């Protein structure tokens, strides 16, 4: 499963903390929709640039973006940093 949520938590000593959840699944859906919208343009650009050998490269790059997204399965980040009494934690999974 690719990461679906990203949390950013900031806490200062003696103050109320801030937690910001970012729904990555919405981001992925937007990216997917954008890629689908770009498909006709990519196909056209590939067709026009085919004589110069760029067409296939362009198509490969386009489909490789999906491969990259799929390869994110299992990616997990948990970074916590303390600076001047402020704790910042970023969790993606």
């Amino acid at each position, binding site marked *: 499963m690719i990461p679906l949520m990203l949390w950013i938590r900031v806490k200062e000593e003696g103050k109320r903390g801030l937690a910001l959840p970012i729904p990555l699944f919405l981001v992925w859906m937007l990216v997917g929709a954008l890629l689908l919208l770009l498909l006709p343009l990519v196909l056209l650009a590939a067709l026009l640039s085919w004589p110069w050998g760029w067409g296939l490269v362009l198509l490969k790059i386009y489909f490789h973006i999906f491969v*990259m997204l799929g390869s994110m399965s299992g*990616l997990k980040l948990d*970074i916590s940093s303390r600076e001047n009494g402020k704790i910042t934690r970023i969790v993606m999974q």
Partner: protein
Amino acid sequence: MNEEKRKILEMVADKKISVDEAEKLLAAVSDYAGETTTPARDGAGKPGPKYLRVLVEPSPDNPGGDRVNVRVPLNLVRAGLKFASYIPDQAKDKINKEMKEKGVPFDLSHFNPQDVEALLVHLNDLTVEVEGKEKVRVFCE
């Protein structure tokens, strides 16, 4: 074992090709058969690593230090390295030049899928441990 692999091993036994050449041929045959999609296997036949882990923990005398726990799928590393092959030659030259200036003489144009697979298989044995202000561990699992 399929016919191609058997033939390669027979060629090694007959000393027609070297072990290095056989390794390259076996990798090429595996690539062609689409075997690279399954997790790589090390020499002992056990499944290869799936994730690259980076752990940073503060030392006991500095408990409030930074903490990092990152798990990167090796498939993502593989896909990212493959993406590098789409970089145009002019850009590759520029990247190589910049990297050389920064003290990393690394040539992207010499990077091929077989090298990536070999690198990922051998990552299984990699463990880096650095102890100082923070304890850093880099390993594969």
